Every structure is written in C-alpha cells, then in structure tokens.
C-alpha cells in the first residue's frame, strides 16, 4: 500500500517529473563545510550540458561571495554524486556521467573548512 486512500490503487501526480522542467533537469549542489550558504542550492540545467560549465559558471555564480572561494585548488577538489565518490569528466555531458534529474552533487575543498575552520 503506497498510501492509505479511500480508493484502491491510488496514484499521486508526480509534480516534479523531469518533463515539467521545459527540457531542463534539477541539479543540487552543496559545498561541504561552508554553511555560510545555509543549504545546498537547486538549479535547472540542460542534461546535455558539459560538466565544465558546472565548475566555470554555476558554482562561481552561487558560491563566489565566500572568502575561501578564490583559494580553491580545483585539482584537489573531491566530488560526490548522490553520496558516492565521483570523478567527473569535464567535457562529458551531465546525463552521460550519471547526473540525472534531482541528483545531488557535493564538493569538498580539503584545507578550506569555512570561516576560521568553523564549517561556515
């Protein structure tokens, strides 16, 4: 029973199915230990967008106000996709490397742990 309902086999409308986003899919991005940004962010992105755009455009647009941002060594950044360790390919499309609708992409920046190391 997927829901207690007055009719049998009740099926709910999937409000956030990918078709509703006009060709985009939702991508969540979180910067570990930088709670200066109170929560991970949500962005609509084309599934065929190369990963390099995430690094060159989306992440700076969202996170560059932080004093740690300019100090990031992008070669040392560690990525997680939906909780699993992940090695992105910069040129490949998001969809071609398993980044699907409502996926969570986390990045951590070793040595940079927020304001005064507080995780902020």
């Amino acid at each position, binding site marked *: 029973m*997927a*829901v*207690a*309902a*007055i009719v049998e086999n*009740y*099926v*709910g*409308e*999937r*409000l*956030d*199915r990918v078709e*509703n*986003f*006009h060709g*985009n899919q*939702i991508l*969540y991005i*979180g910067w*570990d*230990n930088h*709670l*200066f*940004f*109170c*929560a*991970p*962010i*949500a*962005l*609509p992105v084309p599934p065929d967008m190369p990963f390099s755009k995430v690094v060159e455009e989306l992440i700076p*647009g*969202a996170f560059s*106000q932080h*004093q740690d941002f300019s100090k990031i060594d992008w070669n040392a950044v560690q990525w997680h996709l*939906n*909780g699993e360790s992940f090695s992105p390919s910069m040129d490949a499309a998001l969809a071609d490397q398993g980044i*699907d*609708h*409502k*996926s*969570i992409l*986390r990045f951590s920046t070793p040595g940079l*742990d*927020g*304001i*005064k190391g*507080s*995780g*902020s």
Partner: protein
Amino acid sequence: MSNRKLNMKDKYRLLTRDLEWEYSYQDYEEIFKQESFEGIKITDWSKWEDPFRLTMDSYWKYQAEKEKKLYAILDAFAQNNGQQNVADARYVNAIKLFLTGVSPLEYQAYNGFAHVGRQFGGVGARVACQMQSLDELRHVQTQIHAMSHYNKHFDGFQDFAHMHDRVWYLSVPKSFFDDARSAGPFEFMVAIGFSFEYVLTNLLFVPFMSGAAYNGDMATVTFGFSAQSDEARHMTLGLEIIKFMLEQHPDNVPIVQRWINKWLWRGYRVLTLVAMMMDYMLPNKVMSWQESFEVYFEEAAGSLFKDLARYGIEMPNYAADAIAEKEHLSHQAWGIFYNYGHAAAFHTWMPTDQEMDWLSEKYPNTFDKYYRPRYEEWRKMEEAGERFYNPTLPMLCQTCQIPMGFTDMENPTMTSYKQSVYDGERYNFCSTGCKDIFDHEPEKYVQSWLPVHQIYQGNCGGAEMEDVLGEYYKMNLGADNLDFKGSPDEARWNAWHNLEPAEDKLKKAS
C-alpha cells in the same frame, strides 16, 4: 408542556448524545464511509467519553463574554497607539510570522475538524469535533482582528492569506496541515488533535504569548488569553481520541504508534519557525528554544509517554533526533532566513553584540564554535555595504519542505542528506524522519508542491525573482522584505521615538 428548567445533565444529554438516531434504511458503512479505510477498528462508540461536557447554548454564552473583553482591550490598544509601546520594531516581525504562518492554520483546523466532525460513527466524537471546529474559526478571527492594528503601521501584514498559499517558507506550515487534512479522520485526529494540540501546543503558544507579554504586545497577549480555555478543551479531546482508539482494539496500537511517530516529527519540523523566533526575533528574550524544548517536550512528553506505555505506546522513535538538534535548530533556521531575507515578507537582521553574548551563554556547546564566526563574517560584509543575500534558490526537503539547512548531528558542519528512489525518480530529504514518512506513503508525497521547483517550472509568475516575489507572492519589494536596517519599518519607528538610524549617528560623529 411543562416549563420546568432542565438540569445540566439532562440538557447535556439531550443536546449531544440524544441527537443520534438509529439508522434504519441506510447502511452504516454508507453513512460513515471514511471510518474504516485507515485500518482503525472501532467496536463500540458508546465507550467514548465526551471531553468537553459543554452544551451549545452555554458555549455561545461563555465565548460571547470572552469576546466582549477581548474587543474592549483591542480597542484600548488601538486608541492608545499600542504599536508604539512594543519593546522594539524588530519584535513586530515575530507577529508577521505568526499572522502569515500560524493564523491560517487555525482556519485549516476549523476546516479539518468540521470535516472529521461528520465522519465518525460516534455522536460524542462528532459533537466534540464540531465544537472544536467553531473554536478554531473564532481563533483565526480574533487573531486577524488583534493583528490588524499592526497592519496600519508596519509592512508585511497586508496579504497574509494570499502569502500563506504561495510563499516558499509558508509552504512548510501549509503543507503540514494539507497533509493532515488529506489523511483519514483518525489520522487527522492524531496529527492535529493529539500531536499538535496536546503534545506540541505549549511549544508554540507559550513562546508566542510570553514573547508578546515580555515585549509589550498587549493585543497578542489578550487573544492568547482568550484562546487559552479553548486550548485546554482541545487537549482533552486530543488525549481522548488516542485513549479511545487504543482501548477499542489491539490492532489499532501499531497504526496509532506510526501516526504518533510521524506527526510529532512533522510538527516538530514546523516548530523550527518558533525556535528561531524565540532565540532571534524577540528583543526581550523569554527563554531559549533549548530551555523551552527541555521543559515542554522532554519533560512533559516524557511523562505523557510513560502514561501511554500501558497501552503499548512508546516514545516516538524520532524524539532522540529532535533532542540531538536542540542546540542547533534555531541558529540553522535563522541562517536560512538571513540567507533568503530578500525573499521573506518580514525583516531579518544580525544579532547585536549583547544578543550574541546571550546566545553564547544559552548555547555554550555550539554557538561560539559553529555560528558566531558565520555571523561575524555576515556582519562584516554588512558593514562594508555588501549585506549577504544568497543568490541561488535552495534545495528543499520533499516532506517538510524546509530548505536543507539541517546538519548531521554526528558531524554538525555537514548537511544531512537523505535520498530515496521511488518509481524511477529521486526524492531528497533533510532527515530520517522525513524520509521514512515519504517511504511509507510515497504516492502522497510525490505530490509535494515544492516552491523552488514550482518557480523553475514557471508556475509562479515570470522568470525573474522580482516577478515571483512582487507579482506572485504580492510582496511590496523594498518594504516587506530585506534587512531590518534601512527598512521603512525602522524609519517609522525611529520617527515615532525621535531616534536616529545608527548610520546617521556614525556620519555625524566622524
């Protein structure tokens, strides 16, 4: 016809139980269609003990007296320009949050109790629910009247009902009640009657009403008092429904336990708004969220669940998670609203030095370590004329709909991420409680109207944030939203009290 006056007992019987009749030409299941689908087994409704013991005619008389007193005080408050006597203009933002976030829930409760007041086979339960329904309607009306005076002098009050249905953070309390009202009648009673009105109510009303008293808001204190005796009756109904279900059939126990687990977690998540109100929005503090939580949840609910143990009911399994969060919750919530202060219909601000010291004292294990550094940085940016506003919309929890600002209590600087895959699609959550609720009834929560996703789908006005906030949410941009510093509210307050804004003072001194 004798014109003997009926005694109370007879009158009560005639006006409640005696309203019932034997159903002779319709099946019981046809009349009370919603009584059995949730799996709750009722064998004998006559065992129901009426919680209110109040007849309709004495109810009207009693409530009318309270109304008379209430409106006399509200008139006096308005005539004396009571709005000028609150502790500080920042306080009024707590009342904006109440009017937009809580008062519409009273209206939802009125609808909900009116609905379940038709669904139960037992006349005692039906009468009690109908009476509570009327109370709730009275509460929403008196609250709107009490706060309407503030609407004449402060921004952010004007479209509270419209905002409740649309604004991103108001989807948290709204979806909580939508969830309860779209459940069956017994689950609604556990959700609202028991979990909210009995277990959690003191965590909601005591802070707001004491906060009002400590901050010179006589209007709010007065409607609080006027609602208090009603709330006491509602608590009796909440407890009666639980005991009745548990005594009727042993098969009800696991169902009721699951509902209690679910609804205490759902309710606790809504109370996040109260936590930040207590610790950040009251210029004169009553007590910290942590202290309030210890008294009204840990102690009070602890002894309640000891009482319920004889029915086989245990302390809800997420209580430990809520307790673990008590030193973090309010700070994480205020961080969310400070980040998105440009999109809120009330003002946000950084605490003063004195307030920061109060927070350090009340939260010795967490405030200086995790939150003060963040605030000092935000304050520095503000002083440099670059007040921080988060430029990107946040990820929301599929169940509670709060931005994912809660952290893992074993590692409090790491966001708590939980995920389920259902029918080929990912769903994300802030906590085990919210994930479990989804996993048990996914067909319900796939329908969550998540404000951020709705904006990206183009369902909330135009493509620009100004369109969403101004047109779709109906905020007066530049007046309702943004930091308290520099707001028209602040300017009016300073004019009433001949105060100078801090910025002008600095300029003169240099």
